[in-house]
């Protein structure tokens, strides 16, 4: 029995790490994988989702709708940023890094000036349950389910919908997609908006579990980046498997030696993966298929 308790505890830790990696990374992965843009303002779209959803919750709106509102707000902000800042820089990928970094700083400092150093949270809903000697948060289980739902929804969107097919065509051979009647500028805007909306979703989902401060985006950035770096450009062949591998390493080391060991172990794993697979897991798979 003791073994089963420990096993459950480990699976919970793994699920929790996996969910955080997937949810914080998928927006970054969509924008990097589909557009080749490294979005350093990713954390600020997460911030936007967290702040909007929490403010809306304070107005009395139920949490699921509030999270949706946060995601939509971040998506709209993303489309505006794409048109105003990213679009003129498509042929200059290095400059997009600097530009998005600039946006990140402006938003963080702007939030600090306008809304102050912290925002009252909404509290984690659903309470907890106990198995053996340990107590677990129900909401964290909801987050694990949401991570899987998000991956499934993205997969359906990119393979089964018209937008998904046109978006993949645009990413593979842009000039031909354009010549076939695809409004490629619109596709880029919507893809960037989608990535930002996913970041906003992560912010909205994690807002009830965190202290809301203007720099909160940065606490997602490390996980988001290591997942995308290990996974490579493809969200399904890359991000999801990377989250499994990294989540497993993090959960193992955390249950063995504590949080710090989990974090260090994950970063060491990333360094090793970059040495062996410079283009990430999906780069390796795609190369072998080609």
């Amino acid at each position, binding site marked *: 029995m003791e073994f089963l308790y420990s096993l459950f505890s480990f699976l919970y830790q793994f699920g929790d790490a996996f969910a955080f990696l997937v949810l914080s990374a998928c927006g970054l992965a969509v924008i990097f994988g589909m557009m080749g843009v490294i979005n350093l303002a990713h954390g600020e779209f997460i911030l936007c989702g967290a702040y909007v959803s929490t403010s809306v919750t304070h107005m009395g709106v139920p949490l699921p709708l509030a999270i949706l509102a946060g995601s939509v707000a971040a998506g709209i902000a993303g489309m505006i940023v794409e048109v105003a800042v990213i679009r003129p820089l498509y042929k200059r990928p290095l400059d997009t890094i600097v530009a998005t970094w600039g946006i990140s700083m402006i938003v963080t400092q702007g939030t600090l000036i306008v809304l102050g150093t912290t925002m009252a949270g909404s509290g984690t809903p659903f309470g907890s349950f106990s198995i053996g000697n340990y107590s677990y948060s129900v909401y964290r289980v909801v987050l694990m389910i949401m991570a899987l739902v998000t991956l499934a929804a993205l997969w359906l969107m990119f393979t089964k919908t018209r937008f998904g097919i046109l978006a993949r065509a645009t990413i*593979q051979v842009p*000039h*031909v997609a354009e*010549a*076939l009647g*695809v409004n490629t500028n619109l596709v880029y805007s919507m893809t960037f908006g989608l990535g930002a909306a996913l970041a906003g979703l992560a912010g909205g989902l994690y807002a009830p579990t965190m202290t809301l401060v203007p720099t909160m985006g940065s606490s997602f950035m490390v996980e988001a980046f290591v997942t995308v770096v290990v996974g490579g450009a493809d969200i399904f062949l890359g991000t999801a498997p990377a989250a499994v591998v990294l989540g497993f390493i993090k959960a193992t080391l955390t249950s063995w030696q504590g949080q710090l060991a989990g974090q260090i172990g994950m970063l060491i794993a990333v360094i090793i993966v970059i040495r062996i697979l410079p283009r990430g897991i999906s780069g390796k798979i795609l190369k072998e298929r080609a």
Partner: protein
Amino acid sequence: MRKDVILDVINLNSGYGGKPVLQGADFQVREGEIVAVIGRNGVGKSTLMKTLIGLLPTDKGSVNLRGASVDLLSAHKRARKGIGYVPQGRDVFPRMSVLENLLVGEAISGRSIAGKVEEIYKYFPILKERADQRAGTMSGGQQQQLAIGRVLMGEPSLILLDEPSEGIQPNIVQDIARIMVELNRETGVTVVFVEQNIDMIRAMAQRCYVMDKGRIVAELDQDMLQDRNTIRQYLSV
């Protein structure tokens, strides 16, 4: 009675980054024609095709589709006006399936047309066989058929084909030429194609323009196209 002009190109100039390639091309194509554009390498044939679809901007002169200028329209808007473009080297979407490639072609019309995929499969049965295969893994000839099928999905009234025979086995070249003639006869679609392969030119073209140094320098009619040596001579102008 002569049919209406579908494509009217007047003193067309364009190029890459300020370097002129097309230098005053003038020609007309009528509804339902199959017209070849021939000439040596580097005379501007592909540049002409890219300028017609709008992937390269017009520097001077104009392109008119059924009497209306399309010069200020971006490529996707021209496509939606009925111009279908099959690029040199096919450029299928390599990591998408054959069927997905075809579905992208619907973007031209902005709607899905019931039964259209089956109709394309009738002309190109290989695409039905390979519907789930990733396009990047097919042979050049199969990819060319896919690229043509893809553009047909949007029911264009004018198809621009850039060197359809390039890198394709001779028997497939003949097949593609035969299918294009059949399509033209059955649907009335107008075809303008750039080509260097004499067999393909003779199998498809009803008329032929000769290009040199970015301009149209001669026109060959059906009778002149019967003579291989005439074509060969112009290909090496």
